């Protein structure tokens, strides 16, 4: 009964947030000003005469001219990727701040992502391995007895404390059963 009520509450909150987001981002998608669009494109391009600055950030004359060109092209109706493509065709890949998703520079993107995914997978298997191991090992094994007892006591306190807290919590103030925790 209580479980259902909190579930319904969560559902209602999710629905409200969802509908606001739906309205704000899909029905009335944000309009960017020309300045913002110029800045977006310029920050994708590298200033070729500076050390480690983008066209958007650099005060160099060349960058100022490039920002002017970007503004003109955007005003004449070109899309952002078209403008970036225009600069790539003139200066080559080295003008791009972020490596394109093709060729050698694909490596720049794929290696970290692959490693992160690999790490997640490894973590998953390690966790599962540990989990099944601990299922056949009784909890007392592996450590000194008092340590584990202490550990269990701690857990017991935590549960008691939490139950105590929940009892006075206006949001969750309903009766809870006595300490019979499903440990899943």
């Amino acid at each position, binding site marked *: 009964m209580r479980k259902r009520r909190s579930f319904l509450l969560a559902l209602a909150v999710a629905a409200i947030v969802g509908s606001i987001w739906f309205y704000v981002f899909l029905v009335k998608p944000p309009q960017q000003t020309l300045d913002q669009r110029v800045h977006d494109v310029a920050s994708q391009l590298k200033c070729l005469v500076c050390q480690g600055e983008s066209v958007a950030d650099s005060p160099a004359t060349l960058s100022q001219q490039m920002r002017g060109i970007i503004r003109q092209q955007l005003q004449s109706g070109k899309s952002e990727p078209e403008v970036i493509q225009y600069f790539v065709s003139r200066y080559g890949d080295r003008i791009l701040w972020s490596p394109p998703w093709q060729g050698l520079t694909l490596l720049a993107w794929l290696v970290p992502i692959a490693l992160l995914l690999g790490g997640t997978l490894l973590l998953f298997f390690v966790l599962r391995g540990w*989990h099944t191991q*601990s299922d056949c090992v009784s909890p007392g094994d592996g450590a000194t007895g008092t340590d584990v007892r202490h550990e269990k006591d701690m857990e017991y306190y935590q549960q008691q404390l939490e139950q105590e807290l929940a009892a006075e919590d206006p949001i969750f103030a309903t009766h809870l059963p006595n300490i019979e925790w499903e440990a899943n």
Partner: protein
Amino acid sequence: MYFSDLGIIALILALGFAVYTMFVAILGATREIPQLIASAKRSVLTVSFFLLLASAALAISFLTHDFGVSYVAQHSSLAMPWYFTASAFYGGQEGSLLYWALMLSIFSAIFVFMAKRAPAVLVPYVLATLMGIETFFLVVLATVSNPFVRLHVPLPDGVGLNPLLMDPGMLVHPPMLLMGYMSFSLPFAFAVAAMITGKLDSEWLRSIRRWMLVSWSIQTTGLVLGAWWAYHVLGWGGYWGWDPVENAALLPWLTATAFLHSSMVQERRGMLKVWNLSLVIASFALSIFGTFEVRSGIISSVHSFAYSAIGAYFLAFLGIVIVFSIGLFIFRLPKLRPEQEFDSAISREGSFLLNNLLLVGVTFATLWGTLFPLISNAIRHETLTVGPPFYNQVDGPIFIVLILAMGIGPLLAWRRTSTRALRRNLGIPALAAAVCAAVLPLVGIRDIWANIAFAVCSFTAGAILYEVWRGVRVRHRHGEPYPIALYMLFERYRQRYGGYIVHLGLVMLAVGVIGSHFFQVQQDAVLKPGQEINITDHKLVYFGNIDTQYPDVEIVTAQLQVWRGGELQQYIYPGRQLYRSFADQPASLISITTYGLTDLYVFLANWQGPSQATIRVFINPLVPLVWLGGLVMLLGGIICWWPARRKRRVDVIDAIPKAESEPVEVRVVQGAGVVHGEEDAT
């Protein structure tokens, strides 16, 4: 006899004593001769004395303008004020390496004085490792990168310091960051000592954790100061540009953060020993990489102040460190078995593993991006740089998940958490996130990523504050007034609540970063007197330029009025400083005015005579939160490592056997104390 000669003599003597310490400490440990170990300790103090002497010699050479010393002539001039002359000490490569070595010797001396607290078996090996590192630096200082080399003919005046370095930031940021890099030596020395002796117990862990916390705090300070300096000096409206050198400073900080979390698993459960050792070694290797990268100029960066050929020395040293550590590691591997088994993925341990995966993921992605120009050069003979958009797209989402995990992690119990308890714990934070997600789009935050990020931040802030509140309330119910209950929580369970403060600081910092990343507004304009710039609800009216001539510097400032919401606020004077000796590098005087949580950032990009100026204006929302968050993080770090009074520890230890011997009902009354003491008590 010049002071610089004294400096050289002191360096060579320091080198001699450092080598002596290494041999004597190892001999003393293997033959078990306590006299030799005592001698090694005194010898470490001697090394730091001679390094202090050498540093004093360099400082005096600077302050007395001894331009016969090449390093002094290249990095200072007669016209510089005394504080910049003194800070020119670490303005170039030789001096900053001397500073590194000096700090290492001072920290080693501090270690000697505190050696009673560390496990006695480890002390000689820690000393030997520290002095091994010191030896490398002293060899470099005495040969290829000697700050005391004299010119055949002294110059009448020096070249002076790069104008970018003539900033108050110079006085605090480089010493902090170099000290940060250096400080990772101590945990590394502990790791080496533990691998040699095979003593990786809880006592070892306590020592190494404390030193790592110190390193972490110093590095945090260095990073925040660096960001602050960039914001005030570089003029592009931001504070973090994913520059290779900035990345290099971030990398050891990330692995140190990972270690501080995963070591808690070892402290509590005796697991992850191998992993923790690798994190300590990685932190040190990355800090050497950072020191080396700035020096070598292999990767182009805005920090191109100090280039030289000593890169090869550092690369060799890095190689030795890595090979030596891996060798020891393999030798010690059989002893590194976990003491306990893992129970459940939904537990504190599980969340620490996730935290480590994400932190190491960010570290790797950042390192990969930093090194990519070299990799692409090796493969295709074309230097392809990786810029901020790459890091924002790869690291940004990982950081958001990390902040989310930061909110959930502390709510999970060790070993396993009942899903019901978790659901109840998550209720209030989730409500905070939902309110944030519902309100922000309606008040005009129209970027979907910014909304997600803000919702995550409010979730985590809600989770932390709720957790603190619950602790306070439990204590209050046992008869303490609220303020005292709050104070007692921090007083008694420093590590736990210090950690929450750090997390809260990071959330504040993240909110600042999100705000300035997504909502920065920028405008450029060429202005004549009387013309104005309108940007958001601010209006700037230009009046003209003011040119002031000083003997060594010319300062040009533009005068502007700031109007906000139709009311005149104040006059601002963004400008440029032209040092006579660096006429082609005008340093900027950026005007930053803070209104509430929004910065008005005005930069004079260019000027023509007295009546034309190119002005670049940024509106940077929430940036003050970045500095505030940094301060809060530092505060939390200090709370964590500040030594607890001995009496406290006795108290906590007393409490445990009592709790075990008494019946359950009684224990619940003191439950709050025991539960919240979990980090300290074990």
